[in-house]
């Protein structure tokens, strides 16, 4: 029994998540009443069976039986991709359906963010929801082949998926051929062009193509690469319609959103579904077990934005509102840094790892990121002054926006937001204070093989 299991049992037993049906809760974990993707059995019950899934949700609305009708419902719902970029799913489908060749659907659950767990958790707990969505996407674009791109080393997700596919085969639910592919364990391997490149038989390298994957993808066939969470939403949109979908979320970004809590919270890796207006502080208090305002929060992933705990506490946890503040919610990571750890030392640690995760294609990334990491290392060792700080800012600005993918720009976002958020720490480091970026329970997780390689 893991910490996660005892945690969600406790939450359900206390019934703290608005047990009254008329009051719609604004967030919840697996099994909480009022949730959408995570509704159903609690985390401790493990993977949901096909029988339970179909009893709970029923069949897909017959209105969505033709590809065009289904695409119209997706268009009306305003569903945006949940991999981080927020691209309209309906546009992707329309492009793929109109492009020459038979399309392929890819379920992207590779989730390269080390601390994010939402896609893995969806596959583990609600595999049929994701597979329903993949089947619907295949119907919408006329595909006969589905590829599930994920890490088979996530054993529980792998087992859940294998069992779910067997159940669907036995029940005659399989409409398209489903293939499971083990994604390479690199940060950039989940980027759409990298996924397409890998599934075409090359390395998982991001490309800067003239045409989108939905037009020319795997083996030059139109390829719809959707995040696992997007497809799970699609399974519900096809059942309950666009109007129901828009009851959660905001007009700019309709529907609920999955986030992952990480860092110094009660249960790192806990996936929470956000349904309505709620502040980051409220979620951290109720779901993260925080009783004091933390030093800082890293939003959106390791290539996301640091903001101070005080600023984060009253900020709404909502994709569009954060975007107006210049913050991307990305993959939905909310990582908490307590005041036992120096934020710059933590940034230096993440930077060293991220620099090594470059796919090695673009000069500005290959040479630029290690230089940025080196500058921050020197700062936390107390070796730097104002001059080095100025050069760090110049180098960071020169790397922003370069390269064939978003990796260098993301790293610059992390560095620049760290310099702003940890200004007091920065000042003391510039006066010679020394910090060590050691590993421990207070730090953010990094893949284990990287730690061993050091």
């Amino acid at each position: 029994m893991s910490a996660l299991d005892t945690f969600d049992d406790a939450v359900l037993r206390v019934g703290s998540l608005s047990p009254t049906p008329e009051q719609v809760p604004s967030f919840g974990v697996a099994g909480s009443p009022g949730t959408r993707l995570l509704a159903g059995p609690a985390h401790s019950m493990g993977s949901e069976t096909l029988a339970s899934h179909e009893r709970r949700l029923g069949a897909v609305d017959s209105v969505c039986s033709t590809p065009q009708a289904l695409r119209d419902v997706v268009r009306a719902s305003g569903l945006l991709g949940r991999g981080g970029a927020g691209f309209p799913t309906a546009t992707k489908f329309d492009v793929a359906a109109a492009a020459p060749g038979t399309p392929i659907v890819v379920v992207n659950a590779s989730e390269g963010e080390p601390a994010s767990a939402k896609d893995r958790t969806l596959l583990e707990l609600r595999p049929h929801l994701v597979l329903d969505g993949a089947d619907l996407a295949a119907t919408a674009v006329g595909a006969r082949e589905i590829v599930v791109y994920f890490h088979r080393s996530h054993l529980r997700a792998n087992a859940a998926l294998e069992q779910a596919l067997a159940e669907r085969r036995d029940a005659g639910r399989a409409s398209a051929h489903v293939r499971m592919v083990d994604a390479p364990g690199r940060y950039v391997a989940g980027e759409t062009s990298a996924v397409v490149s890998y599934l075409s038989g090359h390395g998982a390298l991001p490309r800067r193509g003239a045409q989108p994957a939905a037009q020319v993808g795997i083996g030059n066939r139109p390829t719809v690469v959707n995040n696992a969470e997007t497809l799970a939403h699609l399974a519900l949109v096809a059942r309950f319609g666009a109007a129901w979908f828009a009851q959660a979320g905001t007009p700019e970004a309709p529907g609920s959103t999955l986030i992952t809590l990480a860092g110094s919270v009660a249960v790192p890796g806990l996936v929470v579904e956000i349904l309505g207006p709620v502040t980051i502080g409220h979620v951290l208090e109720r779901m993260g077990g925080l009783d004091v305002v933390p030093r800082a929060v890293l939003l959106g992933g390791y290539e996301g934005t640091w903001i101070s705990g005080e600023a984060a506490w009253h900020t709404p946890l909502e994709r569009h509102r954060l975007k107006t503040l210049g913050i991307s919610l990305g993959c939905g990571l909310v990582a908490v840094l307590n005041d036992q750890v120096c934020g710059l030392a933590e940034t230096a640690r993440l930077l060293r790892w991220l620099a090594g995760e470059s796919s090695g294609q673009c000069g500005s990334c290959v040479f630029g990121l290690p230089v940025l990491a080196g500058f921050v290392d020197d700062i936390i060792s107390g070796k730097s002054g104002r001059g080095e700080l100025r050069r760090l800012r110049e180098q960071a600005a020169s790397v922003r926006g370069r390269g064939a993918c978003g990796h260098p720009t993301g790293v610059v976002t992390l560095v620049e937001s760290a310099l702003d958020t940890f200004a007091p720490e920065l000042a003391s480091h510039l006066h010679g204070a020394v910090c060590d970026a050691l590993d421990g329970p207070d730090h953010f997780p990094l893949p284990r093989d990287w730690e061993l390689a050091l």
Partner: protein
Amino acid sequence: MRAPIDAVRIVVDGAKCDGHGICALILPERISLDAWGYASIENDPIEDTRTLARAKRAVAACPVHALALVGPVDVIVRLRRGAGRRPRDRAR
């Protein structure tokens, strides 16, 4: 009717750029080389025809075909048609 050229931009594929640096000699006002010698491009639309002519030469001069002009399809096609001509040919 001539299509407006103000929507044409020059872009670099960072994965292809090997830092030969020829483009920065031809089009210094738009392309600079970073600390490691790779092309860094100012990405605003190219307004005047002289800059556009040199942008075309920069694209043609790149040994690894890392540069491209992007814009509305009809404009790019018209530009490509004249791509082989050097400015002095036209003056004659």
